[in-house]
């Protein structure tokens, strides 16, 4: 059973340097957008 698990697929899938950099960039942009949105609601805490 365990042998049939594709560990490479679980951990890496098709991750390479280009995709990794794209994920990093997407994360920064989306995180900034979430922050801007939360800030603009004016809600505190």
């Amino acid at each position: 059973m365990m042998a049939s698990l594709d560990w490479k697929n679980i951990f890496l899938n098709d991750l390479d340097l280009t995709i990794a950099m794209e994920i990093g960039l997407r994360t920064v942009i989306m995180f900034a957008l979430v922050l801007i949105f939360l800030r603009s609601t004016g809600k505190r805490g």
Partner: protein
Amino acid sequence: MRQLSIFEVAIIIALGTAAGDPMLSGESAILPSVLVFLVILLVYRIITFFAAKYQKIENILEGVPMYIVENGKFTMNEEGDANFAQDEFFAEMRVQGIEHIGQVRTALLETNGQVSFLFFEDEEVKPGLPIYPKLYAKKSKIIAKPGLYACTHCAEVSHLTQQQACSRCKKEEWVAAINDTRVK
């Protein structure tokens, strides 16, 4: 380093899907999610570093504390701020054992949403707007008998004998002011 409160929410939102996707979906691998965690951690560290260094950046991110009550009255400069919900603030005051606004010297809305209070000494307490529902619900434009009334909008207290607008905020609804001191 001090936590920036708005980040807690942002991080929960951001990490929510990053952690959840590899749990559910065969398409999502784990390392990309780990990468997302690390990038968010890095961004968080960078921003908190600069927020600690430059007050201006912290003010933009966090906002600044806002005076709500000064000298037993609501401040007027926050007029029209939709985020300032009066009934929410009344609840906050009641939880702190406050019966009317005349007991409060200063109330400050902190950037994390908590409210800080400074109180008058018993002999300095002045007539003020009652905030417990039974009394507050008696608000009216009609002044039945002469006496001290508190404006329901700005908490200004005036001696009224007839229907009139508040001298401070021009609103017309009043509640009979009370003068109880705080029981500790």
